[in-house]
């Protein structure tokens, strides 16, 4: 009897991994947003055909190993200093596409100074800000973006404004700076949200050609392990608790087309 293998069946490709994503198995926890964001980012680089003109900077945080997954030239910067390192790269390679990929602790706590001044100088880079309201890598401590009442390993009784201040809406803050060219807040909790994020990332790379200032994308993401929830619970918690404080949508869009 004739045996047919799967290779003999002609199939239409309906889905494939972007070429610029390596074969390395990711270390991210089940349900974590980082994996999806990595994939979308690499898809855009594939679609635009800019692998040879792109340099990424991923500092310390859960995504410190991004260079294992992204098949592009990358630098791993010190905690909080991605804005500065990316500035260094872009200033000496002004015609390359440069992005930073930072967590909330990195971008909005230890690296606040670098973040504000990078945007204020209008560095022609894309800053991707992954807001999961917690320190994932170090095991679930409070982040500057943790919401009031949120229980973390360093706010065991919930985040209390009187003791430790309010969640920092750094995206709104940087949007006020003249150096910010395009500022938007997106998420990856549904397929529709992922598509919108992809569009925003693509526009941000295209805007770099204009040399008009910094593109800044906050991605409201999750941390099932840090939040001690299942992936599904985490996405529900995100919609219910983070979106009211961090509403999705464009905050600053370029005037000219």
């Amino acid at each position, binding site marked *: 009897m004739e045996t047919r293998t799967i290779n003999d069946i002609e199939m239409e490709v309906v889905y494939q991994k972007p070429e610029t994503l390596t074969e390395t198995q990711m270390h991210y926890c089940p349900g974590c947003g980082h994996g999806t964001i990595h994939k979308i980012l690499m898809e855009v680089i594939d679609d635009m055909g800019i692998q040879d003109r792109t340099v990424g900077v991923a500092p310390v945080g859960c995504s410190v190993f991004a*260079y294992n997954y992204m098949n592009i*030239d990358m630098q*791993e910067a010190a905690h909080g200093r991605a804005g*500065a390192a990316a500035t*260094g*790269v872009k200033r*000496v*390679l002004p015609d*390359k596409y440069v992005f930073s990929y930072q967590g909330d602790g990195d971008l909005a706590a230890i690296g606040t100074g670098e973040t504000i*001044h990078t945007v204020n100088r209008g560095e022609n880079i894309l800053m991707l800000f992954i807001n999961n309201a917690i320190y994932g890598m170090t095991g679930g401590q409070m982040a500057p973006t943790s919401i009031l009442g949120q229980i973390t390993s360093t706010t065991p009784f919930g985040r209390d404004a009187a003791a430790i201040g309010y969640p920092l809406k750094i995206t709104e803050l940087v949007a006020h700076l003249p150096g910010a060219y395009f500022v938007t807040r997106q998420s990856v909790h549904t397929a529709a949200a992922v598509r919108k994020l992809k569009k925003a990332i693509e526009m941000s790379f295209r805007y770099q050609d204009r040399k008009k200032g910094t593109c800044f994308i906050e991605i409201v993401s999750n941390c099932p392990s840090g939040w001690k929830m299942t992936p599904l619970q985490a996405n529900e918690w995100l919609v219910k608790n983070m979106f009211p404080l961090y509403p999705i949508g464009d905050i600053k869009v370029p005037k000219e087309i």
Partner: protein
Amino acid sequence: MENGTPKLMKGNEALAESAIRAGMQAYFGYPITPQSEVIEYLTAEVPKRHGVVLQAESEVAAINMVFGAAGAGARVMTTSSSPGISLMQEGISYIAAAELPCLLVNVQRGGPGLGTIQPAQGDYFQAVKGGGHGDYHMIVLAPASVQEMSDFVFDGFKLAEQYRTPVMILTDGALGQMMEKVILKPEGSLPYPEKPWATTGKPKSRERNFITTLHMESESMEEVNNRLQEKYKEIQKEVRYQLIGDKDADVLLVAFGLTARICSKAAEMAREKGINAAVLRPITLYPYPYTAVAEHAKNAAGVLTVEMNAGQMVEDVRLAVNGATPVHFKGRTGGMIPSPEEILVEIEAIANHTIHA
């Protein structure tokens, strides 16, 4: 500016002009006395010539911009003074770990704390023994004249690129501020080496380049450390020093930078009084000229280390001499500069056996 003709220049300005001539492609810095002339000179000159110059929001940002630009393959420099260099330490450790070439300049002032803007040599330990975390070193060059403030920029970039390591010029506020005659090397005399490891965008023809200092497996972290240590061993052959005076002097003075110049005046005064004194000036503070110090100290009646700090390099002198000869120390701190006369008193006491180590 013409080539070859002597100019009268401030140390900081000679250093800045030399960086442009040495083909520096990017400078990132933050103002601090007594080195602000460097960034002022560069922000005026670089836009007219070639390269990038940027006033960063802090020394922390500046050193991480250096990291990014060096990683992207540029010839890059930052300069600061003591408190600013303290702020850069984490970044320097990263740069050493990532094996990125760059030139750092510390125009030292008196400390600790905010200290004083007057010259000092209190950052010897920080520069030579590590400063930041982990097992790393940088090559440290100690100029003693405005001429060397200029020349060592070329040497510094060259060594940094040859060994893929940060190089520091450790100088002080006096050398930065004072004016002297200097002959500047011409532009274009330092070729750019290939940097196949730099992150410039991955073409199809090669694997991706990534710059990292993270090695989660102990085995691979130790491997990195072993490789660094191998490199530091190789760097030992770059030892440089200068002997001013007799090979077998009775009193051997050991001093670096500005103090070496003052010591050579004191040694000259001692010789006029019939005491055979010589000065050994380490030019590389890392690698340190241990062998030379041991050799020249061996037959001396005593060794005198003079520093503008409370006694830092003297520990390396003692390591070198290893008990063979008494080692004495004379230090001034807080921006005080020792005079040749007060050093002469020490030399005389050693020669007359009136003090003991």
